[in-house]
């Protein structure tokens, strides 16, 4: 795997970019690099933001542009490549997740109002959508969109679903959703355009918790269907 390209993002940030793809192996390289850079505790580097295929490094230009170094970005980039090389920053395979969360999900009915429509669009029955959605060991690629919102890697491509043409103005907290090739859980009531297939009672974000987000970048996630038969019979009675 290549070392990342570096792009300045304004005067005080450097975006390390591995590629422009959603790929579990690339994402593992990002998290490995984030761990190495974090433990290096470079002076003036105050924030690291891992994403699908990039790591944003925010720094204080007054520290990296002094001492005759005119180009703070080049100086920081050289230092980052040096510590990534020393830390074995070339990750060939995704290591197993340090933590795996089991998240109980009620699928269908009021909890997953788009499940029935999605199943018929995909030409599957609802039980098969649930089986395929609960099969993978998902990995948290990144957090974004809203506090505690985890983008999960590993969706069965057969379940890829277009976003709704008109986003909902309010998606209930805990909604489990599919958008394109991605799946995720809404941590709070938010506007959203993904297809809602189920809901969990787990609290995904709590500012009083350390760290506040339940799902951390790199974590593993298993979705477990709660009462799949009850959901099916509930639908039958509607």
């Amino acid at each position: 795997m290549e070392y990342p390209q570096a792009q300045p993002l304004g005067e005080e940030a450097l975006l390390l970019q591995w590629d422009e793809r959603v790929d579990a192996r690339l994402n593992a390289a990002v998290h490995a690099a984030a761990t190495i850079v974090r433990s290096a505790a470079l002076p003036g580097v105050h924030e690291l933001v891992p994403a699908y295929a990039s790591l944003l490094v925010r720094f204080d230009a007054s520290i990296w542009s002094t001492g005759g170094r005119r180009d703070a970005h080049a100086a920081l980039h050289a230092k980052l490549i040096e510590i990534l090389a020393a830390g074995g920053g070339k990750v060939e395979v995704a290591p197993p997740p340090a933590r795996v969360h089991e998240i109980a999900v009620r699928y269908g009915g009021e909890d997953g109002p788009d499940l029935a429509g999605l199943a018929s669009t995909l030409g599957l029955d609802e039980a098969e959508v649930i089986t395929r959605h609960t099969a993978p060991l998902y990995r948290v690629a990144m957090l974004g969109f809203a506090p505690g919102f985890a983008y999960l890697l590993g969706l069965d491509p057969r379940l890829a679903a277009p976003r709704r043409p008109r986003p909902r103005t309010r998606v209930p907290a805990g909604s489990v959703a599919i958008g394109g090739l991605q799946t995720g859980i809404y941590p709070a009531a938010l506007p959203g355009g993904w297809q809602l297939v189920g809901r969990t009672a787990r609290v995904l974000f709590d500012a009083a918790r350390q760290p506040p987000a339940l799902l951390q970048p790199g974590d593993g996630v298993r979705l477990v269907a709660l009462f799949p038969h009850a959901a099916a019979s509930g639908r039958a009675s509607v």
Partner: protein
Amino acid sequence: MSLEMLAGGLATSVQDLGRPGWQAQGVGAAGALDADCLRLANALVGNAAEAAGLEITLRGPCLRFTRAGAFALCGAPFELTLDGVPCDPWRCHPAHAGQVLAVGRALRGARAWLALAGGIDLPPLLHSRSSDLNSALGPLPRTLRAGDTLPLGTAARLPPASPARWSLDPAPWFAEAGGVPLRLLPGAHYARLSQHARAALYGSVFTVAAQSSRAGLRLDGTQLDLVQPLECVSSGCVPGVLQLPPGGQPILLLAEHPVSGGYPRIAQAAAVDLPRLAQAVPGTALRFAAVDMDTATRLLLARRTARTQLEARIRARLEPT
């Protein structure tokens, strides 16, 4: 000690220096759109730099002091009266118990920051008292309204007997968004813009659209296009990114921006011009000019040094002699 809100104003919110350090948790730094103005207002009333104050937008609040205190307003010029008597901004004024401070309309620009001696003492959330309106996060995750009561902390010093005999010169710290071109650094995808779009970015006028907010300014004007469509995956964002959604109308991100974004990044506003962007209102006409990284960095660090020195001079002046 507290403040009673008699009227909330158009979009008044509690702001401090925000929540840096939580972006990987999906929480943006946000905070005051112009941290320099908030810091200077805090210095004038004897507060620490990180004390929470009020960010006021276009039409200000009306509030009553329940005990003697002091206040200072920095930013855009606003109508400002204490019990009906006009007060000037950029100066520390005392207020007696029961007095009513009314912040009226912005005379120019859009936003100002009101510091109150002792600071607004809501319980911090993730080390900040600020309201992140876009994520509905904070001890008070919304704008202020009539009937709200805001607790004030203990002031570092007794309220002054009369308005300070000196005030700050706003000239280095306040400028409108329109007029002089705003400086842009090239973004990672600048080279992907069509030749026509590159010329339009620097040669035409963009108007701030009504759907703008603390998260970003949506810009109407010449539709910008790429040589060919570009698929990006989401990556971390910072304030000042000028991103280009498929519709061709760019969005300039402000402090309360989403933590990540997947649109092409065509340019980046120089950080030294972000305070001017906080003064943009719907309808403001913006022009852009190119700047290089060395110049932008030098200007940013010079502004930061000047602000730090001014804060120190204010603090020295407040010390009893």
